[in-house]
């Protein structure tokens, strides 16, 4: 009798240790973003940092926030060599403007390029707490369309290279941009 009761108690403790599934863990891989890495056109193996790059979605009034601690417009600018941008989960196309040297006092240095990404979507089950995630596959025929910005000042992105058409995680770059 005592043995049975202690067994049941053990069972209960084992149970109580594994019920943490009501909150979606922030480390769970969910909807991935598109990863773009920037390389030096003169030395294609070397990562190159961008200067004050602002990325803004078509039809949006605000850019992607890269620096959450900043309060002024500089929160939309990045000086990194790699960026992650979210694609639309409800449409098969998504257009972004990439503005280099955003906010520079010399307007001649500001250069805008526009890229439209074309892809198909698939919703995958993650867990009870997280729900589903969307994964993307860039179209094989026209994965992206690059155009110059409104100023007709030429593209600052000299080569845009697709390296991974399946966007299922954020572990590696999907695009390489040489400039």
């Amino acid at each position, binding site marked *: *009798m*005592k043995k*049975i009761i202690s*067994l*049941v108690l053990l*069972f*209960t403790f*084992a*149970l109580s240790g*594994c*019920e*943490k*599934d009501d909150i*979606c863990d*922030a480390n769970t891989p*969910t*909807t991935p*973003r598109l990863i773009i890495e920037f390389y030096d056109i003169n030395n294609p193996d070397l990562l190159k940092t961008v200067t004050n790059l602002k990325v803004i*979605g078509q039809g*949006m009034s605000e850019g*992607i926030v890269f620096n959450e601690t900043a309060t002024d417009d500089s929160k939309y600018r990045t000086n990194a060599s790699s960026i*992650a*941008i*979210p694609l*639309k*989960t*409800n449409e098969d196309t*998504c257009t972004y403007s990439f503005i280099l040297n955003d906010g520079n006092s010399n307007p001649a240095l500001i250069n805008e390029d526009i890229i439209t990404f074309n892809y198909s979507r698939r*919703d*995958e*089950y*993650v*867990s*009870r*707490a*997280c*729900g*589903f*995630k*969307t994964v993307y596959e860039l179209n094989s025929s026209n994965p992206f369309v690059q155009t110059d910005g409104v100023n007709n000042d030429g593209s600052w992105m000299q080569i845009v290279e697709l390296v991974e058409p399946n966007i299922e995680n954020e572990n590696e770059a999907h695009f390489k941009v040489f400039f």
Partner: protein
Amino acid sequence: MKHILKYFFSFWLLSCSFGIRAQVKDTLTIQTDSFPVTAVTPEAVPELVQDTIKTHRYGLRVGVDLFKLTRAFWDHNYKGIELVGDYRLSKRYFLAAELGSENKTTEDDRLTSNSKGQYIKAGFDYNTYENWLDMENIISIGLRYGFSTFSQELIDYKIYNSHPYWGEMPPKASGQSYSGLNASWIEVNMGLKAKVFNNIFVGFSVQLKGLVTNNTPGEFDNLYIPGFNRTYDGRFGVGFNYTVSYFIPIYKKKIKIETE
């Protein structure tokens, strides 16, 4: 240990009788008189039972889970029934089984899904309670093997996007259904059954379950398994029932009482 169980049982029996009274509005009030438990003190027992012959009745007990049956009245997402039965094999051992059908819609934060199907659980109960006189109460611990066949439907879902730059999307309707699913599990069952009058018993039991097999749809998960209830990340589950049952006596065994 034994005394603790006795007092615990008396207390439970008492509260149970109040519960019954509250539910059926005074039709069962006379029944409190037939409980010798509260009136008899443990010291008085040996005197009382001297030279008595204890009669053990053997038979089949069948009943229904009142909780599942009444849940549909207050929970529009649930419909279900569970029939329970046990057959007394020996002084302490009972063959026991539950048979049920459930249809439950679960609204989680990011998913709404429906699960419906049938299940059967079979095993045994061991009565740890030493009855006085001709009482037939049961405090049991038991083991069951459960099996369920069911189908699930994903009704709607939300996309988890930790970077909602393009805005948070409303839930997407799905309607995708997954049929032919099954699961099996082992459960430890702890229960009480009290004879409230004649051959009517009320009982309560709690169950701890561990999944043995779980045939999931692959691109989805079994979020609710009829009989097993809600699933967690691990293999464990819990459940309970509140039953009323009728005992059908089949034969009797007379046993001389052993004095303690």
